[in-house]
């Protein structure tokens, strides 16, 4: 199909060139009457075939894998061991595809190491470090943050913005998010092996944890029933009762209805919130109270 596409493009370009050339050199005074319809036909056929499907960057003429891998490390400001980094970028699917190719051609292939073990190791490094970093948060919040940062989409986002998408060796194209996420973990492990764990942890901090910048805790973690959660939380701290009070209201019975509810315990404000109904206002007040209790605002 791609050959057909190229032939169409080439023929139309040559035809046009030929037609114009004969005119310029003065052999004839006009462009032949078959030229326009032929070009039209070629054009419609090209439209029918559709656009060129995307090709992996590594199939382009200007591609040097060694240079790309070298630049990857330098771009991130890290000193990787070249061989370990290359192993971290090689997926099992690529190794299998290469072996099959070699078998078909009957050539002996030198052993290619895949990044399987590195992925496992990197997963553990990232996970342990995140748990260590979020130690001061309450358990369920720390878990939510950990899950948010280690989700496939987040890791794939970070990995693709490092420039991993083009240099991963895998048989699939376009590269899937799960593969990108795995490669990020493998790269972390490769950094640990090239240098040390501390360096790998700084790497995770700079690239992964920095994604939390500008986010609020409730963007990532949201208790389903804030009032019940707050009741349990208060019981743990020895407060058995709290009292919601309507502090303000305006425009009741209109679409712009607005209520302000404060949660009090023993005349002390625990949290305050707004909403278009009293129930919603209570819940936002509970969220506010949870935040104040957790982080001692």
């Amino acid at each position, binding site marked *: 199909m791609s050959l057909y596409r190229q032939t169409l493009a080439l023929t139309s370009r040559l035809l046009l060139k030929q037609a114009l050339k004969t005119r310029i050199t003065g052999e004839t005074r006009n462009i032949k009457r078959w030229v326009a319809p032929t070009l039209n036909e070629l054009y419609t056929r090209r439209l029918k075939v559709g656009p060129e499907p995307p090709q992996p960057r590594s199939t382009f*003429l200007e591609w040097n894998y060694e240079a790309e891998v*070298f630049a990857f490390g330098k*771009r991130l*400001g890290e000193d990787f061991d070249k061989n370990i980094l290359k192993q971290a970028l090689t997926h099992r699917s690529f190794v299998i595809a290469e072996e099959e190719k070699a078998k078909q051609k009957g050539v002996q292939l030198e052993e290619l190491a895949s990044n399987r073990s590195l992925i496992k190791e990197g997963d553990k490094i990232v996970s342990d470090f995140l748990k260590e970093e979020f130690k001061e948060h309450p358990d369920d919040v720390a878990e939510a943050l950990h899950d948010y940062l280690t989700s496939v989409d987040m890791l794939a986002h970070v990995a693709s*913005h490092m420039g991993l998408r083009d240099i991963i060796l895998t048989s699939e194209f376009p590269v899937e998010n799960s593969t990108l996420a795995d490669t990020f973990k493998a790269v972390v492990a490769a950094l640990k092996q090239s240098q040390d764990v501390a360096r790998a942890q700084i790497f995770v901090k*700079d690239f992964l944890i*920095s994604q939390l910048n500008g986010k609020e805790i409730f963007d990532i973690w949201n208790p389903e029933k804030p009032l019940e959660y707050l009741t349990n939380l208060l019981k743990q701290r020895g407060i058995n009762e709290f009292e919601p009070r309507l*502090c*303000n209201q305006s425009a009741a019975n209109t679409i712009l209805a607005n209520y302000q509810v404060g949660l009090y315990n023993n005349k002390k404000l625990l949290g305050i919130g707004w909403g278009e109904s009293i129930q919603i206002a209570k819940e936002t007040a509970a969220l506010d109270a949870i935040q104040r209790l957790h982080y001692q605002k």
Partner: protein
Amino acid sequence: MSNSHIFLKSGFIRTPSQNGVGRYVCQLQRVVLKFCKNNGSSRGMREFVESELINFAKNNPGVVVYLKPRRHRAPVISAEFLNGDKQWVSCHNYSKQDISKWLNLLRTQSGNTTGFRLRKLQHTDHPSIQGPWTPYTFKDPAENLAEYPNTELSKPKIQLKTATDELLEIFNSVQISDKKGVE
């Protein structure tokens, strides 16, 4: 004045993937310099390759530089960014200095910004630290204890003098001065 800019894609200034929060990563990942070895339009590009390219590559080890000589075609810089954008700059008859300036621009860009209009030159995701305004934000606490109907609170907050009031005032002042004159 031309209005063509209103049909451009528009948006706000952004940083890809929190770049610079942890550490800064140059967003230009590779650049291909295409030129002809004979054609005059590529002269500046050839000079750049001869004298300045090595320094550029040394100073920016994170950018992969490819050279692609091709016969009788115009010189071109094709840049690829980490966010997947590609930018194509025609360098027909550019001098060595022009090319190094363009490369510097591409090196410091975060993506392909051609055909993109910035609505403002600054942007924040958090326009207010204090939070959104509510009807109760600047409410006077004294209103909590007020009893309604309340004549004092029912008055308009800003009450300007009416024309009648002003006329009366003028009238009164004139009368006083008249009286003074009589005495």
